[in-house]
């Protein structure tokens, strides 16, 4: 297998020299033909390399199984090319958290429980793509990665992603919601850590990140008890929940009444933000 790759590499070198000579000699047609050949050879080289990587025995490095974390499967593929498209990976992480989350947290959760990660910056265009897809064929997909809405203006909340199948109350963000969602996420992450059959350092680190900001959840990064985290988070959540439920309920009702289908998923358009802000201020004053 590796021999084939080497032969291809020599061919690539020869082709590059030929392209350069053709370009310098000003032979445009020949240069473009050679370029085509070069591209094809490069593709063949990539394929040969992928095959070579697959045929290697994969020792150690088990990859965390999705069933352990409650997800449907695990991405145990070759690292560079995950088996699932990005939107489905995001869905997996969001389904585990069960609350709207920021791209960075989504990436960390996916790394901890599904063994593959992606740069958080890749998610910036995802919401836009999903919106476009929804606009061209509404409900053609079983779910969409969509926005969380601010309770006051019903505009997309900055930097939060959610899943379209969640109830509206879950996707509306009031002023207490970030805290309630943080605690809910902590509970869900702790439960997922508890289900793991073997300790996964990345998952424990993630749990510690949550536990450190919850009073009475854990004292030490090395000794975290998921049950205790769940208990502490539930205790604090009980305090905030009534107020939060009220704000979210009111926001969700307004969203259902005032917004069309697309806006319910992706937020009210920005151009009306100024007028809406004026209206809200009028109401407040």
């Amino acid at each position, binding site marked *: 297998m590796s021999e084939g790759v080497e032969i291809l590499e020599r061919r690539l070198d020869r082709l590059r020299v030929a392209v350069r000579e053709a370009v310098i000699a000003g032979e445009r047609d020949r240069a473009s033909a050679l370029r085509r050949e070069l591209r094809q050879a490069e593709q063949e080289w990539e394929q040969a390399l992928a095959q070579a990587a697959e045929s290697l025995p994969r020792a150690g490095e088990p990859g965390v199984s999705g069933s352990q974390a409650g997800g449907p499967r695990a991405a145990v593929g070759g690292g560079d090319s995950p088996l699932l498209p990005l939107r489905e990976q995001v869905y997996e992480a969001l389904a585990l958290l069960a609350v709207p989350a920021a791209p960075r947290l989504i990436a960390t959760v996916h790394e901890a429980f599904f063994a593959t990660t992606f740069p958080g910056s890749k998610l910036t265009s995802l919401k836009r793509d999903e919106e476009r897809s929804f606009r061209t064929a509404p409900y053609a997909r079983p779910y969409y990665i969509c926005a969380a809405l601010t309770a006051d203006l019903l505009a997309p909340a900055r930097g939060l992603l959610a899943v379209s199948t969640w109830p509206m109350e879950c996707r509306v963000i009031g002023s207490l919601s970030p*805290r309630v969602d943080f605690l809910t996420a902590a509970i869900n992450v702790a439960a997922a850590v508890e289900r793991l059959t073997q300790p996964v350092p990345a998952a424990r680190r993630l749990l510690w990140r949550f536990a450190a900001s919850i009073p009475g959840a854990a004292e030490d990064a090395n000794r975290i008890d998921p049950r205790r985290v769940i208990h502490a988070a539930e205790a604090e959540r009980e305090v905030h929940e009534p107020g939060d439920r009220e704000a979210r309920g009111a926001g969700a009702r307004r969203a259902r009444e005032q917004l069309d289908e697309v806006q319910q998923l992706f937020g009210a358009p920005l151009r009306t933000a100024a007028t809406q802000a004026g209206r809200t201020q009028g109401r407040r004053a």
Partner: protein
Amino acid sequence: MKGTEARLARIRGRAVPRNHNARTIAALASNPGCARRAILDAAGVDKQRIAAFTGFPAPFGQSRFALARGNAFEAQLKAEGAAQLLALLREQLNLPIPKAHYDDLTEVGGNTSPELRHARTKSLLLGIARNTGDNGTMFDHPLLRLEVGGRYAYLEPDLIAFRVEGKFSVVEVKSFPVIDGQADGEKVAAAAIQSAVYVLALRDLLGDPGAVHHETILVCPENFSSRPVAAKLDVRKQLAVLCRQLSRLARIDDLLGLLPPGLTFDLDPDDAGVPRREPADLAGAIRTVGARYAPECLNTCEMCFFCRDEARDDTARLGKSTREELGGIEHIAAVLGFARGTGAPDPALAEAAVTLRAAARLRADVLGEAV
């Protein structure tokens, strides 16, 4: 006011205006007599650019790495509804558990225009200050406004926390480390004066000085980790200094009245943005606005090297205390003249001249060399 705006726009020329921020206000307040800085800042001139163009580039401003580190640290603190910051505030301010609200004021429904953000900040904070209900704790990036030299400047503190006894506290996130409980004194001092600017602006917005606590909270990374640690800073002294300096700041209109009408710092860029103006011509224009150089400017102002060069023969260049030791004489040449006994002293400076002469003699006796 319209005339002032037009005048300032003319002074700035075609460059994009740079806005005042807490740093520039703090710097301005530390040298309120400097008309040059007041005019350049009010007009929003890119001082770094014109200083470099006239041949005095200042190694000034935050490094890209420091900025990136600062942003990453702040993002970490504010992730997930400012979870880390909330834990710190609970420790520092004894926030009760139910106070965990978080309002993001970085944008209003996706719109980031300063007027809109300021209006939203104002309505939210005033609403909370006036009724006693529990409906706000942390306000992320509110937009405040402060009048500086007759014009409004927008200011953006990192966070405002609403505490139990009905008072607001300004929280400032900085990325310089606190090592072993100690932080760089100069940086803490700079943070304190910046926080004081925010406190002042917030008091102005609420219209009630008692509603904002004079203790601000500084959050920095601990030791060499990225774990946050919080400390309270009492900014009463900085507030007093700031109030006095801001009230002394000459109004921009008065300063503009003293300048030649056609004055501009425009670099006269061609279509590709390459400046066509002669550096010497620009330097001449800058010199028409009086500066007050002091060695402290080296820490705070982009024009420092230009002004220092200009103040070559000025005793102010040596610092305030040295100038006083030299009897308040303005020029270095005059000081040396008196010491050598060559200058004919003004009757008012006769005493200083005698002292300088004596000092020169002592120096010659000890070191065996004349001044």
